[in-house]
């Protein structure tokens, strides 16, 4: 595989030159609009990821050794800005953001060689197998077992809320290798072939009526021991690995995206002649304050990382602010529309193809997935403010 490393050739490239080069690349290679058909859309997204990878424009925070760009943080921010501006497709599945940092930090050389480049190129789609029916917020109580049989683990159990499971080639999963009571101390990180015998994916219909996630059943699935990351019973500590501050690099784009959404809602209210109503205006003021504060927080987080290598307290609160904002703006939009807000996509009278109603439903998940709001507030209280852990709960 010969890969042009055009994008990473000049480490000390000035910001403006880097930005211009990215912009040119995204414009020249833009894949166009997403196809409606799910199968075609998957192929379309994979083709784009391959183009990025083959041209050396994939994985802004990843090491070059595995096909990434290994950009300094300031250039990662620019990368995300330009990607958002060009509206190019994002990553497929959850592997790039969640599994890859773990593999990069804790995988063996052989594992890195085998998994990273195909994941980055979109050749393999990775999905996460953490939550279980009885292990949601209390993830350390998970019960999917992996029994050691010589050079293999035999995995049996059920995962749930697995996003992108139907497209997945590989699951990265937390499984129990210790006793039932071993909690964090008995959890192992396994990489499981989604096409192996004994794996069954059952799409779950969510409250929007769509099928974003699925249940995944493992029935005696055999996984080579060489597909374990880290030590046996040492998986818990690996599950939340991140690469430096890569997650903060895109914070400004998210802020810009919500800015756009709010402006669009204001335009809608203006068209409908509702902006003169002082109660409506006051709701808009509230959202205006919040959307700007989301940006100021992102600027502070990124500024802190650039200036002193620390993300600071703003990074731990930004998700809480954003998730509440996205719920509130969609509900406000639906309220604003009145009965017209209740119309679905296929109703000819629907407003903006029912985007606000869909958002109202979709964002119910915002304060549940990746940790409920309640659990996140506990985490902030304990880890940022130093408040004591609840003695009635198992230790962290």
């Amino acid at each position: 595989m010969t890969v042009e490393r055009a994008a990473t050739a000049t480490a000390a490239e000035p910001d403006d030159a880097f930005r211009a080069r990215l912009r040119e690349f995204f414009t020249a290679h833009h894949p166009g609009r997403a196809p409606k058909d799910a199968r075609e859309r998957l192929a379309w997204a994979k083709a784009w990821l391959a183009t990025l990878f083959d041209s050396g424009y994939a994985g802004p925070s990843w090491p070059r050794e595995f096909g990434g760009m290994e950009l300094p943080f300031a250039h990662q921010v620019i990368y995300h800005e330009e990607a958002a501006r060009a509206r190019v497709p994002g990553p497929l599945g959850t592997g790039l953001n969640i599994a890859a940092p773990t593999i990069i930090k804790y995988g063996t050389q052989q594992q890195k060689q085998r998994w990273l480049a195909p994941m980055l190129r979109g050749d393999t789609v990775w999905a996460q197998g953490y939550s279980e029916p009885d292990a949601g917020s209390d993830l350390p109580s998970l019960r999917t077992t992996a029994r050691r049989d010589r050079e293999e683990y035999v995995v049996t159990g059920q995962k749930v809320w697995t996003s992108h499971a139907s497209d997945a080639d590989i699951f990265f999963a937390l499984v129990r290798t210790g006793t039932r009571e071993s909690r964090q101390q008995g959890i192992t990180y396994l990489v499981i072939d989604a096409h192996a015998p004994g794996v069954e994916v059952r799409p779950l219909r969510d409250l929007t009526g769509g099928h974003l996630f699925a249940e995944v059943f493992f029935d005696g699935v055999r996984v080579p021991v060489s597909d374990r990351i880290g030590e046996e019973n040492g998986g818990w500590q690996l599950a939340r690995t991140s690469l430096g501050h890569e997650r903060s690099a895109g914070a400004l784009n998210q802020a810009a995206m919500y800015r756009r959404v709010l402006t669009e809602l204001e335009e809608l209210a203006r068209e409908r002649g509702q902006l003169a109503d002082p109660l409506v205006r006051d709701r808009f003021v509230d959202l205006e304050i919040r959307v700007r504060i989301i940006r100021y927080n992102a600027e502070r987080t990124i500024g802190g990382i650039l200036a002193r290598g620390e993300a600071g307290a703003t990074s731990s609160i930004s998700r809480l602010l954003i998730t509440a904002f996205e719920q509130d703006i969609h509900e406000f939009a639906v309220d604003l529309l009145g009965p017209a807000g209740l119309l679905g996509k296929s109703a000819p009278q629907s407003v903006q193809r029912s985007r606000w109603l869909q958002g109202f439903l979709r964002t119910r998940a915002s304060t549940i997935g990746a940790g409920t709001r309640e659990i996140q507030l506990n985490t902030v209280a304990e880890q940022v403010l130093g408040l004591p852990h609840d003695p009635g709960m198992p230790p962290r």
Partner: protein
Amino acid sequence: MSVGYSAEHDQLRRVVREFLSQKSPSRQVRRLMEAGESRDDEVWALLTGQLGLSGIAVPEEYGGSGYGPVELGIVLEEMGRALLVAPYFGTVALAGQALAASGDTEAMRRWLPGIADGSLTAALAVAEDSGSWDLTDVTAAAEPVAEPTGGWAVTGTKLFVVDGDTADLLLVVARAPDGPGVFAVEGAAAGVDRARLDTLDLTRALASVTLQGAPATRVGADRDATEWLAEVTNLVLAALAAEQIGGAARCLDLAVEYAKVRQQFGRPIGSFQAIKHKCANLLLEVESGRSAVYHASAAVAGHQPDAALAAALAYAYCSQAFTHAAKECIQIHGGIGYTWEHDAHLYLRRAKSSELLFGPPARQRTRLAELAGI
């Protein structure tokens, strides 16, 4: 983006915090409060002399250190934390910034060096009965005085004048025949009658100032007062927001410290989720308010196009955040938080007063809507 990250800013914050923790601890605040005094002379001398804090936003050519709203914001954040009892906000943030923004070299040469070295205290008198800071609501009037005396004579009643009862110099907004203007009146001049008002905030004096033909000098006559005072409004709102978020942060600290040590049901109350969530939610607001303040002070300092909006936003947000933090601080402390001896109520008083100082919150939000083009 540059705010709060330089080593110089860290250093400034550390120095001011250290100074205030030694020189303005709670018992000192309470002593001045109970005595109804506006400051401790020795602390004021150190603050303005040794530390040079009163000159922080005064240009170097007038004896200051030539910094601006960003550094002033850092100082005020710390003063808000400590509830410092001193005529700093009125003199430096209100009158000092107004003078420095006037472009009136004569006036700046005359008064700014005194503000910078701490020998002169000053107040900015805008609001009247209505409490409004809108120039259109000003009824005080200024008339030119015939030669040979010359100058102006100001008549009217100002209310809610921060540190107005003790200030050496009053900058009074009044209507002149050619439109609104700013008039400098000596606090001790004939025709000036002033009194401290009985108001909620016990650590910051608000005064009524009645002027009856008080002799005055016009300031910034060459500038359109509406435009100049609009700029002053941005400076002042950003400054007050900084002070507010310092107070809010202190309320959160007090609540968290208490929740860690107060035992009920055999465990610290801070281990209960209900208390944790209150504290975590306050942290969201405090950090968000900080972000808003840092953005606003940088925008105002740099005369950015969004300066007015950023300052109004910071003030609106920090007003709510501070009042909320002060109320939750009392709630988390329970009975002890309701006592006179506990400082929680001093913060609640400051918070609610600051929230209403520039007019009703609904009015602030209406203004924000206009600035945001909603």
